[in-house]
């Protein structure tokens, strides 16, 4: 472990490599986390199936690649397909748990996550897959820092998608309705907003965002039916750290988490990379509690 830290000090270029990798992957985490923040903030549903939606989107790209279409072209299909999937899921399951106690939504989406994992496993098999983008790898600093072109492309797509979602939320009628519902569902209903439809749209939008994120994950990283759980946990870490309805916070937390994970994986070894994520979640929760405790007035 100390050797690895020494290596970082001796070879500063390695830091740039880790930093870049972290930022590129963090941008994708930001998308999924924003979807979770949306669903959580608007509907008060804690979606534990977030990571599974990401992996589902990834399989769109992988399947496109395996039948000879460039994986990036599968993105519109993935977005539309996941949107439809989210709508159906909302109608079947989520609509019945929206107004229930919050643990119910957590468990229902956990059940959904199990079903999706196993469905993917039965459909595509348990192998670790990657969607080949076929782009070359750029080298900087005489080859000591390498970045695949696809990472640049996915970073740009992330920014475009994020801007599109933000504009949608600000300008469109549906976006305004979603924001109104998140502020006060009852008042929105009184004003003639069909809140049920807003909820369905929000959940479907979340699925679509996750699907787009998954397409990129499958090109610059790997997908496997059971790799959804870490993605869910990442989304939760980011949202819990940033708070709801705080878009800049979500972006910063996501990029930070991406970098922290790369460093954690490098310093502690790849098998502890996941512990870094979970450990960060615990750290954030404990730190938030200490913050809260300062404001607490009851005698303990």
């Amino acid at each position, binding site marked *: 472990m100390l050797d690895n830290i020494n290596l970082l000090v001796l070879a500063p270029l390695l830091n740039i490599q880790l930093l870049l990798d972290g930022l590129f992957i963090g941008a994708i985490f930001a998308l999924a986390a924003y979807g979770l923040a949306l669903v959580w903030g608007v509907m008060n549903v*804690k979606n534990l199936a977030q990571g599974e939606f990401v992996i589902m989107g990834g399989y769109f790209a992988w399947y496109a690649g395996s039948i000879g279409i460039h994986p990036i072209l599968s993105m519109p299909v993935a977005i539309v397909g996941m949107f439809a999937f989210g709508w159906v899921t909302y109608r079947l399951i989520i609509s019945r748990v929206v107004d229930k106690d919050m*643990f119910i939504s957590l468990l229902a989406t956990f*059940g959904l996550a*199990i079903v999706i994992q196993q469905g993917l496993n039965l459909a595509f098999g348990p192998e670790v897959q990657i969607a080949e983008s076929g782009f070359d790898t750029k080298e900087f600093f005489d080859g000591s820092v390498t970045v695949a072109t696809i990472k640049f492309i996915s970073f740009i797509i992330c920014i475009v998608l994020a801007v599109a979602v933000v504009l949608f939320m600000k300008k469109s009628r549906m976006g305004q309705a979603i924001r109104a519902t998140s502020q006060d569902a009852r008042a929105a209903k009184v004003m003639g907003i069909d809140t049920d439809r807003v909820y369905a749209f929000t959940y479907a939008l979340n699925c679509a965002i996750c699907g787009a994120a998954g397409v990129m994950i499958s090109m610059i990283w790997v997908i496997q039916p059971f790799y959804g759980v870490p993605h869910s946990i990442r989304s939760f870490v980011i949202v819990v750290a940033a708070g709801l309805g705080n878009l800049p916070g979500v972006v910063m937390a996501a990029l930070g988490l991406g970098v922290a994970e790369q460093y954690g994986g490098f310093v502690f070894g790849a098998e502890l990379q996941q512990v870094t994520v979970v450990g960060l979640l615990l750290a954030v929760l404990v730190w938030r509690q200490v913050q809260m405790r300062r404001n607490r007035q009851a005698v303990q």
Partner: protein
Amino acid sequence: MSFSQREKLTYAFLLGFGILGPILFPAYTFQIAVLWIMVLFAQTWDTMGGQMGYNSLGNIFFFGTGMYICAITQVGMFYDVGVYTAAHGADKAVFTDTQYYIGLGVGLLLAALGSAFLAAILGWTVFGLRGPYFAIGTLAIALSAGELIGAWEWVGGGGGIALPVYPGSGDGKSEFFYVLCFASAIATFAFLKWLYTTRFGLALNAIRDDEDKAEAMGVHTLRHKTVAWTISAFFLGITGGLFGNMTGFIEPLEVAFPTITFGIFMVAMALLGGKGTLWGPVLGAILFHIIKETTWTYFLGWQWIALGVIIIVNVVFFQQGIMGYLEDKYPHWFGVEVEESNAIDDQAKEATQ
């Protein structure tokens, strides 16, 4: 009262099944022992989730720690643990009969106490969290514990530990552990039955109903929550030690900290039976185990999908569980007298007066 009669019948049936089961179906002894372990899971989860309203997704943490503490004690009392685990069972370490039984006894005791101790410590950090944050925080604890143990070479790392071999025949082993599992399930049930009638049990229910009001009424909530978690960890520690010895080989991710199998099963079982009731977890565990074994046997490959669908259907359409349903349908079974037509008569009387 008809209720006590019904209760007596249930006791008689369960005791009869517990005692006669392995005698009539010797091939299923291991399976029925696992059933009692499932009952233990559901009961200990319900102390927190049902009675106190704190839905933990990470109670499996104490199962795993209990298992590891028990295993390390059993080995460590007579051998060097690091050497034993490094060999991965290559050179057979021999345990005599007395060594085995003393090791098991001390191991189970330490497993229970160690888990309870860890619960008390963790309680200070975790119980500031409420609702979904508590569920996710405890889930994170269980997940990271599995990964960390997997990276800890001294206890065998990802390769796991082979436990001392039972000094008797295979049938003798399953009967021995069957008796232990059955006895712990009964002991836990009896203890919890008593606990829920005490003032402490009422305080737990008060925390579930409204924590802030309970605190305002003078219930020391943090202390009550920590003690409740300690109790559930104590029994889970024993369960873990027993299960580790039954399987004979433990390993961090699949056996000791199976967060997404046993860890979720315990929640699903308590919900299926009806959380917050004494009998709910027991009935839920029995029903769930039967469903699970059937799907595992006849729908192999689809069993997980069946499990996910069960959880979804259970939480979405049948939240009150079996006991909750019965309580709605037949309130007089639970000593609740419903007077239907009299209420209107009383109102009429009041109106005329």
